[in-house]
């Protein structure tokens, strides 16, 4: 049996995983990164439009700061987010972006003087300040008060990931490519690493570690059409779930991005609309102002996706052999702008649609895009229930997005959570609690168990075809656990998924019997795991009888702050179970800095909790009193909801901006 010992095992080589790796290395600890693909090919590379950080350099970002970013994030989350975590995040985002600039990301910069932009379908002139010249600029994104999304053209994730991976090279981080973690090694409530399968040789390797971090991204591929890379299958969430100890949070919170191209579901960035692009229906009519007069195309993603679906249901969609779609018009931005700032979009349109987006409209419709849910952790990134297991980035639910994530907050989250979690893990490694106390015989048992499961898949007879089960699962998720949900469909989804899950125990890998690289074998064990994840999503959605953020129930259209201001916690305590176990975690209104209110979209359908009003009065009184005493915004914030002491010391400092803290 091959065993590799390390201080920190990091599963996943995208932005979040690599940032954890370089962080713990800097603190003097060893790290091994396991990754399915070369890190530079991770799904982080596909993030196009940008990273939110409240630098406030460009004229349209003037007045921005952590407070505004925080308020946007909480509203966006439909008050589902953990406000302390959101505070930690918005405080650290400027630090993370400056760090990335230092490591080589060629962020697009402010150019002083006049420039033309398109706002609300009109040409306007923006004058950039002399003193901002050469600092990092930002574009507009949905659901934000200020232009806050920093970018490199529309290849932001690519540039960030390349800089991050190069930094990992510099720091000599050990990266084990084409290795897939297939189960976690754990004993007595403590995680000790993972069993991994080498995808080239088929060999099983036990990675034994003091701390283990899952940074494997989201689980979009449980849907048949998703903007996600094909490796985003939720295997990280599944292996956590399969411990029976670790829990998942808010798995039903799934984001649909308004503008993926039809039919293949490849993303065109929110930057298209941020830069002035419009959504049009079959008559070429701009319909969003009718639904959302204030934010129009730049309402929050969940809202725009629902409005588009509603509009198509009214018969206003464009008919095509792949179903109805709408148009994204960026021709008004002009060729020069598209070729400079939206070049990935242009390439995608040319290669996959055969059109020139500077001349023609792009066929789009809302498509699965992001997983707000994930491995439930404390603010430190550590599982609430399995010691030594950490998670960050899209894989985790720590929980800064609640029920809807703002565009530009995801790549930002990867690097911010990575830099923070690296510090908390390092603290843990430097404590006596972190010693390895697992017997080698136990490690061997874990490896042996996986070996047996793989053998069974290869030697089963008259079993099930994994592809059949998987395709059916993907269809069910699309049809019954989509943008709009209802009790009847969700019940059917849960029942059928449960049946598919039971059938998946009897999967047989037909014909392709190699124990080495074997795509059919991989599909077989991944399908079993994906079905568990799909069940968590569908079951959580069925039980949540309200509408919040991206979880929209036609039979329960209200956001119910009386009964549902809580997180869904999902676990799988017994291997023989055929459904996950669901419990809930209350979200405490009384400690909120920003008590629940109206998000400002459509009609206000909130069932209010009386505590919200009470807390709002408290908050208002504190603000009024402290303002009268001449306190600054930091002191007032501290009085409302302290968070700074939770941050690692090195990240507690105030951020400099033009005219503030310089």
């Amino acid at each position, binding site marked *: 049996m091959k065993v590799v010992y390390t201080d920190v095992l990091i599963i996943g080589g995208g932005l979040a995983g690599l940032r954890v790796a370089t962080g713990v290395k800097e603190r003097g600890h060893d790290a091994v990164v396991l990754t399915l693909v070369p890190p530079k*090919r991770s799904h982080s590379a596909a993030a196009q439009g940008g990273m939110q950080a409240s630098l406030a350099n460009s004229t349209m970002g003037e007045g921005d700061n952590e407070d505004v970013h925080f308020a946007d994030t909480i509203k966006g989350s439909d008050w589902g987010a953990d406000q302390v975590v959101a505070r930690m995040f918005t405080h650290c985002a400027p630090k993370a972006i400056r760090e990335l600039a230092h*490591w080589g990301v060629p962020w697009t910069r402010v150019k002083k003087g006049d420039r033309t932009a398109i706002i609300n379908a009109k040409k306007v002139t923006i004058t950039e300040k002399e003193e901002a010249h050469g600092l990092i600029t930002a574009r507009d994104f949905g659901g934000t008060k200020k232009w806050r999304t920093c970018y490199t053209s529309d290849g932001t994730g690519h540039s960030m990931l390349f800089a991050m991976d190069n930094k990992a090279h510099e720091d000599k981080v050990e990266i084990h490519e084409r290795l897939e973690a297939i189960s976690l090694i754990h004993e007595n409530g403590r995680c000790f690493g993972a069993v991994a399968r080498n995808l080239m040789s088929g060999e099983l390797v036990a990675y034994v570690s003091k701390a283990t971090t899952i940074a494997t991204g989201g689980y979009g591929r449980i849907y048949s059409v998703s903007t996600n890379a094909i490796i985003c299958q939720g295997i990280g969430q599944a292996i956590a779930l399969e411990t029976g100890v670790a829990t998942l949070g808010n798995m039903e919170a799934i984001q649909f991005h308004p503008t993926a191209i039809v039919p293949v579901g490849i993303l065109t960035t929110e930057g298209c609309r941020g830069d002035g692009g419009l959504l049009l229906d079959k008559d070429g009519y701009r319909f969003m102002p009718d639904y959302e007069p204030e934010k129009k195309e730049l309402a929050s993603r969940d809202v725009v996706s629902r409005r588009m679906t509603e509009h198509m249901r009214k018969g206003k969609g464009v008919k095509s052999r792949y179903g109805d779609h709408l148009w994204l018009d960026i021709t008004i931005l002009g060729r020069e702008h598209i070729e400079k700032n939206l070049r990935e979009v242009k390439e995608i349109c040319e290669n996959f649609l055969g059109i020139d987006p500077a001349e023609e409209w792009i066929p789009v419709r809302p498509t699965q895009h992001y997983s707000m849910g994930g491995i439930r952790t404390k603010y430190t990134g550590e599982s609430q229930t399995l010691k030594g297991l950490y998670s960050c980035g899209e894989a985790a639910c720590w929980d800064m997005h609640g029920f809807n994530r703002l565009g530009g907050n995801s790549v930002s989250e990867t690097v911010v959570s990575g830099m923070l979690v690296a510090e908390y893990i390092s603290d843990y490694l430097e404590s006596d609690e972190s010693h390895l106390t697992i017997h080698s015989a136990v490690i061997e048992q874990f490896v042996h168990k996986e070996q047996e499961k793989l053998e069974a898949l290869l030697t089963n007879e008259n079993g099930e075809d994994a592809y059949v089960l998987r395709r059916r699962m993907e269809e069910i998720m699309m049809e019954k656990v989509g943008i709009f949900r209802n009790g009847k469909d969700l019940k059917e989804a849960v029942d059928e998924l449960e049946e598919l899950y039971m059938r998946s125990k009897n999967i047989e890998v037909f014909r392709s019997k190699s124990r080495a690289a074997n795509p059919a074998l991989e599909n077989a064990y991944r399908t079993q795991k994906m079905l568990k994840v799909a069940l968590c999503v569908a079951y959580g959605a069925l039980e949540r009888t309200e509408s919040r953020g991206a979880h929209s129930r036609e039979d329960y259209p209200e956001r119910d702050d009386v009964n549902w201001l809580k997180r869904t916690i999902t676990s799988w305590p017994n291997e023989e179970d055929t459904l996950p176990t669901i419990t809930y975690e209350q979200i405490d209104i009384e400690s909120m800095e920003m008590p629940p209110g109206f998000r400002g979209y459509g009609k206000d359908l909130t069932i209010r909790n009386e505590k919200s009003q009470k807390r709002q009065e408290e908050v208002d009184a504190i603000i009024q009193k402290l303002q009268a005493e001449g306190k600054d915004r930091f002191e007032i914030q501290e009085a409302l909801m302290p968070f700074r002491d939770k941050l690692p010391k090195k990240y507690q400092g105030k951020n400099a901006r033009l005219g503030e803290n310089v």
Partner: protein
Amino acid sequence: MSEQKNRILKISILRFDPHDPDDVPHMETFEVEEAPGMTLFVVLNEIREHHDNSLKFDFVCRAGICGSCSMLVNGRPTLACRTLTKKLDEHITLAPLPLFELIGDLSVYTGKWMRGLNERLETWIHDKANELNVDALEERMEPELADEIYELDRCVECGCCVAGCGTIQMRENFVGAVGLNKVARYHLDPRDKRSDEEYYELIGDEDGVFGCMTLLGCEDVCPKDLPLQSKIAYMRRLMLKTALKN
């Protein structure tokens, strides 16, 4: 409008499983009915799902962004995911990217090669003297310069330029256009404090910029249309100047 009858594509794939002692490299042909908007990503998955589930290939983003799926399509290196079948004849030949370690069928180990290259050329910002203060304003950069750096930063390490390179066929340690472009990118970046002499140490020989025979297959096949020709020429002039100066 009557639907046109779809073509039946004949996909010939060079197959070999290095883990199977009985296997030898051989061509295998599959027939797939073409569908509108079909890409090689769709074709290969269809073959795996309905014809032969042991077929090995690599896709990740399937959107032309991540560089995983480069292979020889009718003999030419390119990204398979964004290759539309309608642009090809009905008989399509697919082979793994040459020069890289073969994992099986169309799957090659580009990651290992690229990591070796990045380590060798130290493709990161060298600036030990400048300690970052994460609280302070970022260093300024001219907007045009940032754009120029991004232009070169767009390389996705797909390996097409390496597969299309004449020099590397004879000189296996040649850094390739991917390597020279990376050096050009860091040379352009004022945040990297390496001197011309230090760059000369990295690429001032025949495995570097003086090895290039300017056949420029690299530029022809680069899926990101990087200005490889002009950057190689520029680095060559610069390295020559550096050599003469010293």
